[in-house]
């Protein structure tokens, strides 16, 4: 009686399962990063031994095969070919071989990849069929305090680092209060140090410059401290402020810009500002930008309506950066105005400090180096990109916040490192090169769950009833058996169903 009840429940649930509508096309999964799940119009198929269409064709054409077998092989081949044609497969006779016995089919796109895979899977000759999945690694550096660096995750750096972690040949100039170059998280990253005005190089009594430099390129994945936007970058420490107030004179700033331009800097960060525009600074900035140097500066910390009077940020050929919070709000201090180009995290930013430790501080000073750092990453991908293109890419790929479209608080929006890098490499909608051929084929296409190459195995995955690290139909088969045996619960079945068909 009990068994009958359980079987009835299982049958009822199975019927519900069958009736769940599935999308006929699902090339893109709706994730926060909107990454494609599999390659459009490609299917990977493994046939049972001797059942691959090509094998059947060879068998049918072989002189050593008996006539009966020839006829049988030809019939099976024709059936397979017909099936493939109905699914829009265009290379049944000329598939690419992924690994031994596994072929990669191309389709004409008239039938969705998911539907084609499901249909092939029902074919007796097929051992398994699946989309050509994309795999994405999310690079998580092992720096001890990386978990506190909300800013890095907010601008999508872990994904961006898949494309590039930077290049030590790209020089990023930091015109600031100096950099503590022997900070354990900065050693070896400073490629040049120079002082301007009254400042001698190689010191930072303020801490500000050390913080900025750490954001751009602290030693990363070294199990210590913080991560930088760039894992590899050459930082030019151009010390133009050396008093206790963190003030710079025009003379020192212009000379530092000139030095950076003539000594190979690709990007200059200026986390500084003042209310007066200067001809001398405007002239040297124009020359630097003309020679291919991108200049990034803070929009200012005087709050609403003051960015247009904050220089150098207010110059049209400088990327002026506003500050955002962990919740993607504009920071209360962030200067706003028509000259703000983009925004970046600037509230409570953790980075290196001048006493060898780390400190969390705020300011558009802290937002600017995030942008400068991403610019350095862009140059690592393509060193010949023009400053105007850099600015345009950052703006067009920024996440629009606040009032829809450009606004005076966020500019074009909060920067997105991955989106920017995708555009630099000319592959705006093309994901990274996929790992073709899943080394552990799943017996059923797991369309709705983006596969994770480093996914946790065992029973820690919700819905993974058979504990093989994958939520698939094999879990259902085992569940069914165990439910009948009375060793599984309906709750487990529900867990599996929810995960397996999430979002449908």
């Amino acid at each position: 009686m009990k068994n009958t009840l359980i079987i009835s429940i299982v049958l009822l649930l199975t019927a519900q399962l069958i009736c769940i509508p599935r999308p006929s096309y699902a090339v893109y999964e709706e994730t926060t990063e909107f990454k494609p799940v599999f390659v459009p119009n490609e299917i990977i198929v493994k046939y049972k031994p001797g059942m691959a269409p090509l094998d059947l064709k060879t068998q049918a054409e072989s002189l050593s095969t008996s006539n009966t077998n020839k006829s049988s092989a030809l019939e099976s081949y024709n059936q397979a070919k017909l099936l493939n044609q109905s699914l829009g497969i265009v290379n049944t006779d000329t598939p690419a071989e992924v690994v031994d016995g596994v072929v990669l089919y191309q389709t004409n796109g008239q039938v969705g990849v998911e539907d084609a895979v499901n249909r092939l899977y029902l074919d007796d000759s097929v051992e398994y069929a699946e989309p050509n999945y994309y795999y994405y690694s999310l690079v998580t550096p092992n720096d001890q305090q990386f978990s506190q660096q909300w800013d890095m995750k907010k601008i999508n750096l872990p994904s961006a680092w898949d494309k590039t972690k930077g290049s030590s040949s790209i020089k990023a100039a930091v015109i600031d209060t100096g950099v503590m170059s022997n900070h354990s998280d900065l050693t070896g990253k400073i490629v040049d140090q120079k002082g301007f005005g009254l400042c001698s190089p190689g010191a930072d009594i303020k801490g500000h410059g050390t913080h900025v430099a750490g954001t751009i390129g602290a030693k990363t994945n070294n199990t210590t401290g913080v991560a930088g936007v760039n894992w590899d970058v050459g930082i030019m420490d151009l010390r133009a402020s050396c008093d206790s107030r963190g003030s710079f004179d025009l003379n020192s700033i212009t000379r530092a810009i000139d030095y950076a331009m003539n000594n190979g800097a690709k990007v200059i960060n200026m986390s500084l500002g003042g209310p007066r525009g200067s001809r001398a600074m405007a002239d040297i900035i124009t020359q630097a930008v003309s020679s291919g140097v991108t200049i990034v500066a803070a929009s200012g910390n005087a709050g609403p309506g003051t960015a247009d009077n904050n220089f150098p940020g207010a110059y049209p050929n400088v990327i002026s950066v506003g500050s955002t919070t962990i919740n993607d709000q504009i920071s209360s201090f962030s200067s706003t105005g028509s000259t703000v180009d983009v925004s970046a995290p600037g509230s409570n930013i953790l980075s290196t400090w001048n006493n060898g430790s780390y400190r969390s501080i705020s300011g558009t000073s802290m937002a600017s180096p995030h942008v400068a750092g991403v610019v350095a990453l862009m140059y690592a991908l393509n060193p010949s990109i023009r400053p105007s293109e850099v600015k345009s890419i950052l703006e067009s790929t920024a996440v629009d916040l606040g009032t829809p479209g450009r606004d005076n608080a966020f500019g074009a929006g909060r920067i997105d490192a991955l989106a920017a890098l995708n555009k630099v490499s000319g592959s705006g909608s093309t994901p990274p090169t996929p790992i073709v051929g899943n080394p552990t084929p799943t017996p059923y296409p797991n369309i709705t769950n983006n596969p994770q190459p480093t996914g946790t195995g065992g029973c820690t995955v919700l819905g993974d009833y058979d504990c093989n690290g994958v939520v698939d139909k094999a879990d259902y088969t085992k569940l069914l058996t165990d439910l009948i045996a009375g060793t599984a619960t309906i709750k487990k079945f529900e867990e599996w169903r929810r995960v397996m068909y999430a979002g449908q």
Partner: protein
Amino acid sequence: MARKSLYLSILILLLSVFLFTYHQVHAYIDMGSTGYTKESYAKNQFIVKFKPGLDPKSLKSKIAREINNQTDLISKIRFIVKNFRNPSSSEKQLRSILNAQKSAGVIKVEDMGLTGPGKTYLMTTDGTKTHDQIKSIYDKIPQVDYVEPNYIYTIQQPTL
């Protein structure tokens, strides 16, 4: 009475020393945490950009070259006299610049070495003239592209 005068003299002397020291130490106007409310620039310093080839250094070189091009002593003297009368000669131009420097109280001239056409100099003055007076003096010199104070900027970090 004599003692009173002595005390007064010492007091005046001390006050003078204090004021002088204060003036030197506080060469920069404090802008506070965000700045912007005051005009801020380095005291007794300004920046002058000269038109290409018309800065003092270039003019001096040009004059030396022109004199050297004269073959004999008579020609050299004739050239100098002729230039002295010519208002657009290099020598006259240099002289007007040097006169301006003197009027502005310039005590130090430093070539900033910036890339690009025309030289830019950081001038330090004796403090006898205001920035407006200095600007007025240099604006009258046709060889000058622009003159501006040595503005002060600050880090953009409101919280420490």
